[in-house]
């Protein structure tokens, strides 16, 4: 697989992600605007919809916080040149910072110096998955800081079972309040371990809003948590209303008998993500943003 193709596709994905919201998120925001009954909440949703339109019209990033750049790579086992993919993603990030442009959001936590180009130790972070085949699938998530600041991991009491998880999710939403720029999307995960739960919760944010978990029991839990979160009344931007979350996605892993790890990952309404598949012959399919390069 040619490195320059990977770099160009990654660049296009970052650009698409920060300018165009995925269709499912847009539709959910439109539906929320139609259904919101609080006047203050409705005003906020209207401003959000207007802003989305303006960003597309002027080809400018939706939000001034263009986020931390995270890649999810699903690599076919037969793909050649996988060792070059990571450097291609770093180069794409540098180019996007200059050309889109993005706000430089990578700071050395020790010296407090901003690298200026959105790259640095472990940033952009790359999650790898090896799958059968000869195609390379790239997904980018550009994750805002406001919604990242309220993400929570908890080690719950196994004896409380699923009720403990429900409490943890509701309390996380109430504690977060207006901070993560609601209406948000929640990624919820249980099991695995502290790190695994958060990894799964964050990855759950990539799932489109109209796709419930294929397991009907988990899908039911998603629905229940969605309704409960919207009963809080926090509303759009915390000004009150019935739209606090646009969706709740639950994932799980098996747990140690003594542990019940749980994680809640928040994404702001500007839930920016984009995916493309590069085939062995070099052809590219843009899966989330067809016709928007």
């Amino acid at each position, binding site marked *: 697989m040619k490195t320059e193709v990977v770099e160009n596709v990654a660049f296009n994905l970052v650009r698409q992600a920060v300018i165009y919201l995925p269709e499912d998120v847009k539709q959910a925001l439109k539906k929320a605007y139609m259904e919101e009954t609080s006047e*203050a909440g409705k005003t906020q949703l209207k401003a959000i919809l207007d802003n989305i339109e303006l960003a597309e019209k002027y080809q400018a*990033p*939706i939000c001034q916080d263009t986020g931390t750049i995270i890649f999810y790579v699903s690599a076919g086992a037969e793909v050649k040149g996988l060792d070059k993919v990571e450097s291609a993603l770093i180069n794409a990030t540098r180019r996007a910072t200059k050309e889109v442009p993005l*706000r430089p959001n990578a700071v050395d936590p020790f010296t407090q110096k901003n690298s200026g180009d959105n790259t640095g130790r472990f940033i952009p972070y790359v999650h790898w998955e090896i799958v059968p085949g000869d195609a390379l699938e790239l997904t980018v998530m550009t994750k805002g800081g406001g919604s990242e600041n309220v993400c929570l991991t908890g080690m719950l009491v196994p004896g409380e079972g699923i009720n403990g998880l429900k409490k943890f999710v509701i309390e996380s939403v109430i504690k977060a309040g207006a901070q993560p720029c609601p209406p948000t999307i929640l990624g919820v995960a249980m099991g695995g371990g502290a790190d695994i739960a958060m990894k799964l919760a964050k990855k759950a944010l990539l799932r489109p809003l109209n796709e419930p978990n294929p397991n009907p029991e988990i899908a039911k839990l998603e629905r229940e948590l969605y309704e*409960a979160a919207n009963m*809080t*009344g926090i*509303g759009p*931007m915390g000004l*009150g209303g019935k739209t606090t979350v646009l969706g709740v996605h639950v994932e799980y892993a098996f747990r140690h008998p003594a542990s019940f790890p749980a994680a809640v990952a928040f994404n702001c309404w500007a839930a920016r993500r984009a995916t493309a598949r590069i085939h062995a012959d070099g052809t590219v399919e843009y899966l989330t943003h067809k016709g928007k390069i």
Partner: protein
Amino acid sequence: MAVYHLKTPISEEEIRKLKVNDVLYITGTIVTARDQAHRRALEYAKEGKPLPINLEGLAVFHCGPVVSKEGDKWIAVAAGPTTSTRMDIFEDEFIKNFKVRVVIGKGGMGKKTTDAMAKYGAVYGAFTGGAAILAAKAIKKVKDVEWLDLGTPEALWIFEVEDFGPLAVAIDSHGNNLFMDVAKAVEENRKKIYQKLGLQL
């Protein structure tokens, strides 16, 4: 709910007409200030030094904009609000000393700021978080910038704006605070949620 279009400088009398849930659009001058600018401004006030711009009747905007320079002209590319709670420790003194009439940000502010707004006549206008292009398009001109030594996000950006908004009046000058009202309602709703899910409080 009423909609107001106000021009700066805004008088105390004008601002006292506004109530929570009203919507406000501002035309005139707004000035950005985040943590560092608030801190320095209050140091100046303590030392009796004048600020580079007289803020009386203007709006202060919690914002670290994305700016670009074309020739010697600055352009505001994206300019959404930042979280206001960080400025809560400064805002009462800020309002008292500089007589700003509107504080613009996201996420709301606390009791101390609410009290200062009631005492001196000011409101908090919530601008939609993330709506950075909506904000940038209402900025007609970057008039000036001061305190650039604090870095571009922390500097005082002086913007000429036209119908900047919508700002949801979330704290008015009569002691009402919409965010605190929502927090109270959420406390009540929590009980209902626990009951519905069959959970123990």
